[in-house]
């Protein structure tokens, strides 16, 4: 089977600076794939190499089985939605959307039909005669999408397309984008530094750091079973406790406190036990921990109200733990200074290599 996009041993160096280091990545046809990572991790460089704005220093890059590493952008069956939208300010919305078809020498009458259909799809038919500066950020974003999709690319590349929108609009566009992708069935490669965006929209996520691809998996794998400390730390809040596997099904925290290991642990090499704050339970020191659960005693250091939840910082012998308690009626509150037990299901934790 051929992949929509396949990178083999791709590296990109700018002089002495290594932007991407021997990257292997295969993206399936019709997949919504996100490249997630902090700024400077190489995700945008990777996207730009797929688009053709940068050429790899080493390695091969194929789109649907055809080698494309050194093809110029105008000879690749991909289109890009830019972070700044990059709408041509001197053209109308219709001219913007029709630009790609015009360059491909599509007949005038067909251009006009397809532009109309693309603008219908993003609900902007009424604004086709306007110039981009007359449109709101959300509308410009939709024009940028229409301008790319009207060409029916084999792969659509999106470079943080929602970054410039405010929170409400961003959340709405996330849903729209996902629906659109399912409707048109085109492979999306989506670059973002926003983990929530990646988790909610993607079929699979590739987490990058320092030019390397650290882990590829679907949202639950990335969130619940991170394989590296970086991935665990980057996606959401997490407690990382120094840990070592000291026996069958036993993990010793901070060299002092043995607890039950998660059942999914393979091998015995691990350096950290990763615990999500929302997986931790908090009870008074005189309450009983349920059977077959791990627990640590500690003292409440701090409590912060977040509206939908309370955040506690609990000092324990193995280190400070962040604990999140969902805010609902009858929730017992613990004041700073009180003694408590923190407990969790053994499988709520993940073992993480350095």
């Amino acid at each position, binding site marked *: 089977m051929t992949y929509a996009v396949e990178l083999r041993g791709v590296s990109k160096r700018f002089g002495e600076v290594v932007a991407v280091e021997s990257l292997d990545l295969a993206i399936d046809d019709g997949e919504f794939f996100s490249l997630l990572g902090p700024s400077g991790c190489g995700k945008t460089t990777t996207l730009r190499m797929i*688009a*053709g*704005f940068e050429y790899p220093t080493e390695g091969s890059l194929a789109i649907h089985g055809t080698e494309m590493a050194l093809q*110029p*952008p*105008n000879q690749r069956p*991909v*289109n*890009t939605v*830019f*972070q*700044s939208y*990059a*709408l*041509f*300010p*001197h*053209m*109308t919305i219709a001219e913007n959307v029709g*630009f*790609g078809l015009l*360059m*491909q020498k599509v007949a005038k009458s067909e251009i006009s039909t397809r532009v109309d259909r693309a603008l219908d799809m993003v609900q902007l038919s009424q604004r086709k005669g306007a*110039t981009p500066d007359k449109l709101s950020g959300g509308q410009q974003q939709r024009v940028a999408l229409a*301008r*790319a999709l009207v*060409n029916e690319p084999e792969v659509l590349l999106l470079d943080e397309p929602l970054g410039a929108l405010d929170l409400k609009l961003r959340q709405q566009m996330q849903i729209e984008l996902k629906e659109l992708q399912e409707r048109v069935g085109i492979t999306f490669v989506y670059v973002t530094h926003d983990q929530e965006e990646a988790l909610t929209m993607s079929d699979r996520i590739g987490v990058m750091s320092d030019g390397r691809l650290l882990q590829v998996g679907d949202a639950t794998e990335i969130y619940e079973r991170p394989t590296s400390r970086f991935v665990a730390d980057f996606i959401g809040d997490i407690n990382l406790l120094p840990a070592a596997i000291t026996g069958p099904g036993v993990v010793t925290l901070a060299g002092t406190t043995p607890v039950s290991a998660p059942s999914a642990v393979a091998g015995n090499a691990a350096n950290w036990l990763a615990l999500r704050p929302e997986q931790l339970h908090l009870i008074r020191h005189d309450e009983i921990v349920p059977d077959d659960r791990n627990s640590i005693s500690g003292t409440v250091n701090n409590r912060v109200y977040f509206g939908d939840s309370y955040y506690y910082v609990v000092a324990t012998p193995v280190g400070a733990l962040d604990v999140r308690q969902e805010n609902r009626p009858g929730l017992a509150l613990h004041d700073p200074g009180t003694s408590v037990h923190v407990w969790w299901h053994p499988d709520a934790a993940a073992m993480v290599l350095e």
Partner: protein
Amino acid sequence: MTTRTTSLDRALAANTWFVYAFFYLPILVLVVFSFNASTRVGIWRGFSTRWYGEVLRNPEVLDALKNSLIVAALSTVAATVIGTAAALAIDRYRFRGRRGLDGILYLPIIIPDVTMAVMMLLFFARAFALIDAAGPRFQLGIGSITLSHIAFNISFVAVVVRARLGQLDGSLEEAARDLYANSWQTFRRVTLPLILPGVLGGALLALTLSLDDVVVTAFVSGPGSTTLPVYVFGLVRRGVSPAINAISTIMLVASIGLVALSLVFQRGPKASRNTEMIKETT
């Protein structure tokens, strides 16, 4: 509510008026006396347009004007093309010697006219000596004036175009490439329309500078190839006549018009209008 006017405020206001008077009274006097009926400068004998008529019937003036226009037109076109290309190259490409070129490109703007003029004269003397040795005979004239004007105008065009390029979002050109435009189509349909206000502004600035130049032109012009400003300068040395006022007024109006037009273009008129212009020219 009343604001107190202090003596300092009054002094500043007076200074402002003085500065304006200092700048503009001579120009006003020049313009007014260009309409003087008297043959003697400085004595008002009533309104007349006779000097304008006399100037426009003078074959020497017309010849100088023709030379000025030829030089201005040729040097503007050449300097605009070369200056725009230089601005694009320095803005876009990373090549050996780029920083050095960037620095010296603007040198003609800051070096004194007289230095530029002497340099040009020496250059032409040396170049002509070499060429003459090979056979053809060249001498100073329209050609050398035009080349000199191109030389100093390139810098001004490049500065204006680069300012415009600096504001250009690079992802626009990438978007064009992404949407199947080749390099030439990207330039013609995206880059050029967007920098056109800068290119036209630079061209008008070049035209103005060429029409106004005295020093460089005086050095590199030959017998019978004088431009209008140089001709006026020559007349003044033989004594001020009201005809000079008339010529100067004409040049003043033309210069103000060109500079104003240049500013309008640099401010950037509606972008879509530029596309229309491009579409019509291609």
